[in-house]
């Protein structure tokens, strides 16, 4: 968690610096990546942060399109960073959608303590196994 926060903070600072630099629209890309890192820390804010990432990517695309006066090298760098950011945000979007459950199982549901308690008690006529796991 600490690493994610640090990288997000670094991304935020770097994006601010990048925003000041001429002809290099790194700011939105780094902001997009930065908010992606924050999503790991503030899971409850994840939908908003992902939306922010997408918005920043859109701004990045617009800036990249406008930055035609830049040299070829700069443009190549812009496009490379843009593609990396797009890949990162796309991975996040796909990751945010829970995978469908295997055949025969109910859909993977968001956990709610009260409904889980009901399910747990509803199966009181059987032996129950509870497993807590990390996805990675």
């Amino acid at each position, binding site marked *: *968690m600490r*690493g*994610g926060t640090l990288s997000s903070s670094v991304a935020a600072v770097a994006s601010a610096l990048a925003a000041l630099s001429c002809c290099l629209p790194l700011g939105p890309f780094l902001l997009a990546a930065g908010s992606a890192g924050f*999503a*790991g820390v503030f*899971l*409850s804010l*994840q939908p908003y942060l992902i939306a922010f990432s997408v918005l920043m990517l859109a701004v990045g695309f617009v800036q990249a399109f406008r930055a035609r006066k830049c040299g070829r090298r700069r443009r190549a760098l812009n496009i490379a960073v843009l593609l990396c950011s797009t890949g990162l945000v796309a991975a*996040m979007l796909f*990751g*945010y*959608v*829970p*995978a*469908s*459950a*295997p*055949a*025969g*199982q*109910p859909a*993977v*549901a*968001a*956990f*709610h*303590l009260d409904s*889980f*308690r009901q*399910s*747990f*008690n509803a*199966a*009181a*006529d*059987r*032996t*129950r*196994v*509870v*497993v*807590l*796991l*990390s*996805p*990675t």
Partner: protein
Amino acid sequence: MLRDLRDPNVRVFVVWEPVLVTDWHAPGAGAVGRIPDARVTQFWDSPRALSHAIRRDHIVWDYVAIYPSGMRWSDAFPAPQFSGAPVVRVIDDFRRQLITGRAAASSGGS
């Protein structure tokens, strides 16, 4: 493990929760697909509510617990008949407890 135990009177709740730095999203198809048994229900617990309900002082994860039939959850989360972590270390004891418990329940019910 569940393949070995064909008893239909077992219900399994698999609760995925974010613990590691890399757990910034719900479990993917690879994780969920590792438990294909029809007796299983899987959840994504992003606020780690169940972990807090079991223990408040630290994160409960890589954890397995057995609750015998008849045990109900009223106020506090009930104490399990068997529990352990990490799963890889307790899997043999878990298997033994589950099979023994089911055998006792079946013979008691008949």
